[in-house]
């Protein structure tokens, strides 16, 4: 901290505050960042981290405080002027220019800052950035056609095209598996050239640990504590509000070694019964690209099945196939004995398949309670009320915020809402797709506690998850998918012990 304190800091934000009506999102936050340093910002969902990025990037006007960048007061400057001075940011939920190619997305920043840059230089710069970000093969692809995680890479690439002096990364590591996290860490390290400063908001503790020199912890819009990374992570206060059970940091670094805390699942009584869901030789994909190949699996009533695999392995595609949001090109899907291969999604939902989609998909214009009621239409009022009470018992925080707008609540609460919405239909099978994405460790604990409770009640679940340890804790059976095929199946204990799991997740594939 003291090493570079003599020179003027690159960024000096003092007393930053933001209120939305009566809600205080940020209150009296001080942040100083010297040239070439990397600062991590952590805190629970809803603590005000994204608001802070907005305040620094210029998207949000502060209600109090001032920001100095390279000695100049930039508090009143709009986002575009801050970008031109060298502040590049990413959005937590990617906002690429959808109808433009990946290369054009990068060109926006280039042409905006230097309209007369030579075409050859601009192309070479773009190629370099895209290669570093792992998007070289997608140069001429429209951003609309990129999946979520590649859009996140595009966020980073687009910010880099500005050649920023200060880079603000808002949860770019969410949803990545360990080998990809390693790539991201390598990328961030390659950006540390002594000139560029970076502020990282992140829930993936490994990135925080390996990239950030200093750490600021935010809770309820205020700085809870700050200091060198190791010290901050070791403090009891931080583990109480943020880290939860993953405190100690072992969970993310070595999923295999971490102890299994929950009791081994007692196999459900219905071992001999017919499967609730059966996929027989299913293939599916988007346009020319086949994502799932000849895949078969079955789910027994009351069983919890974990679907694991790297990003791009076909997990989310599989979830969409089962909920009938994506047509199959071959094979059959049976649900409770009936062939549902040709059914539209709403008919599948009516039969009792609920899909808690990746990315939450909360209806912004509806309140929390309305979001819940949407999936329980044509249900008697009394029953509806009963179900609502049930959800509110599971997630008391939703009851507190029942009249708030669906997307005004924090990320973790939104995820709870998405789960609640799936349950409101009183489904026979729920597909949970990446519910831990972008959540603070302590919030993940809470969601998985809820899942464990649902399991005890006998709900059949399909859990798609990149956090291996959490998925294996709750699952009876797990399947590992690689390149659209099941490469390993077995009970959670067997899969946990299998060498191939380690290989897959630590990037020693093939």
């Amino acid at each position, binding site marked *: 901290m003291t090493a570079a304190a003599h020179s003027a800091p690159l960024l000096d934000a003092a007393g930053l505050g933001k209120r939305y009506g009566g809600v205080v999102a940020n209150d009296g936050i001080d942040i100083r960042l010297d040239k070439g340093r990397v600062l991590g910002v952590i805190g629970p969902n809803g603590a005000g981290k994204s608001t802070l990025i907005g305040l620094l990037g210029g998207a949000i006007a502060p209600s109090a405080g001032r920001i100095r960048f390279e000695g100049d007061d930039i508090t009143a400057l709009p*986002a575009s002027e801050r*970008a031109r001075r060298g502040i590049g940011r990413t959005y937590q939920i990617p906002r690429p220019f959808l109808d*433009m190619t990946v290369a*054009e997305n990068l060109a*926006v920043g280039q042409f905006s800052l230097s309209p007369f840059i030579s075409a050859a230089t601009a192309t070479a710069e773009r190629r370099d950035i895209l290669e570093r970000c792992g998007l070289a093969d997608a140069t001429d692809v429209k951003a609309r056609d990129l999946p979520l995680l590649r859009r996140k890479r595009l966020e980073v690439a687009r910010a880099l095209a*500005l050649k920023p002096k200060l880079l603000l990364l808002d949860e770019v590591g969410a949803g990545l598996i360990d080998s990809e996290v390693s790539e991201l860490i390598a990328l961030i390290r390659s950006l540390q050239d002594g000139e560029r400063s970076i502020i990282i908001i992140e829930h993936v503790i490994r990135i925080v640990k390996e990239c950030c020199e200093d750490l600021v912890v935010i809770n309820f819009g205020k700085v809870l504590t700050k200091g060198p990374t190791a010290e901050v992570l070791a403090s009891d206060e931080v583990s109480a509000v943020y880290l939860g059970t993953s405190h100690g940091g072992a969970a993310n670094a070595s999923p295999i070694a971490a102890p299994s805390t929950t009791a081994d699942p007692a196999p459900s009584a219905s071992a001999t019964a017919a499967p609730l869901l059966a996929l027989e030789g299913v293939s599916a994909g988007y346009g020319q690209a086949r994502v799932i190949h000849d895949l078969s699996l079955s789910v027994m009533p009351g069983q919890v099945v974990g679907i694991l695999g790297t990003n791009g392995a076909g997990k989310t595609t599989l979830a969409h196939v089962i909920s009938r949001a994506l047509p199959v090109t071959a094979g059959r899907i049976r649900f409770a004995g009936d062939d549902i291969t040709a059914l539209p999604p709403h008919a599948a939902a009516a039969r009792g398949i609920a899909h808690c989609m990746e990315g939450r998909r909360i209806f912004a214009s509806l309140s929390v309670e309305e979001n819940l009621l949407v999936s329980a239409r044509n249900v008697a009022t009394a029953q509806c009320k009963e179900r609502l009470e049930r959800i509110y018992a599971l997630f008391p925080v939703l009851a507190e915020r029942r009249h708030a707008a669906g997307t005004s609540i924090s990320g973790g609460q939104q995820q709870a809402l998405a789960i609640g919405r799936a349950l409101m239909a009183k489904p026979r099978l729920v597909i949970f797709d990446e519910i831990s994405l972008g959540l603070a460790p302590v919030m993940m604990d809470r969601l998985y506690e809820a899942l464990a409770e649902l399991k005890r009640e006998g709900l059949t679940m399909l859990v798609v998850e990149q956090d291996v340890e959490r998925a294996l804790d709750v699952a009876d059976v797990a399947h590992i998918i690689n390149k659209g095929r099941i490469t390993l199946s077995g009970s959670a204990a067997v899969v946990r012990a299998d060498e191939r799991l380690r290989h897959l997740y630590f990037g020693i594939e093939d």
Partner: protein
Amino acid sequence: MTVLTSQSTPQRTISIRSPAIRIVIACIAFAALLAAPIVLPTYFVEIGFKLLIYIVLAEAWNLLAGYGGLVSLGTSSFFGLGAYVTVGLINQAGAGPLQALAASALAGTAVAIVMSRGLFRLRGLYFTVGTLALAEALRLFVINVPWFGGATGLFVTVDLPEIAALFRYATLLLALAALVMALATGSRFSVLLRAVRDDEDAASQVGVRAFRIKLAAFIVASALIASAGGLQAIKLGAIEPYGSFGLQWSVDPLAIVIIGGLGMRFGAMVGAVFFVAIGELLADYPELHVAITGVTLILLIRFAPRGICGLAEAALRRRGAAPQEAHP
């Protein structure tokens, strides 16, 4: 869309894509248009004039809505403005048609700049409603302020140019519009404009001064529309507020571009040909004309949201994909 990729893709071998060939083709086309009134019967010159005016309006609207995301219903405000400025200058100052049209373009620019402060605060549908209000406000202004002849309007008091000359003015205006569109849609500016269209906040975050980019597009479009309005006024010889500021001047360009292809380079041209052709073929059945245009719009929006040009592009790509697979 080809700003970045055209240099590197193998498609360069196809001759029609090379810029030099395009310029030559465009020059020949405009020379042919300039010569057309000599050989064509008056009826076709009249229709041709109408077509040219519609193409210019549609090009301007496509620049705003298709490339800039600024869905405007204010075309008629600038159209009427151009009409009144042109007739006023010709009558009062004895200006020639070209001078009057240039002054209309300047007036369009000035109004665009003045209005931009307020209009650009509105986004999406609110911007659309704002532009609609502008047209209405200008019309009421013209009716109620004594200088403009009230609801009766104004007559051109000097001798009017012949239709052949007007056709040539329209051709020049179209050439100007084509040049501006080529620059605005094939340049680095188009990258910035489309970024603002796709996500204005994200564009600001990478340094784009969204206000200036939108203003540039708005000025260019307004100047073109005002000139077209002036030209139409000279042709009619008489203007009145309900005609010059009529909603049809706002709605027709929109229909044309949606039929031709929103945000497509040739959308305005193709759509205008279709629109004018239908109008002429069904001139004796006006109600049928409106119905067919409406049904066409519904069908295109439902089945081909990128219009006739979008359909053609998809068909070309399908045909182009087959031979490319032959030699990988």
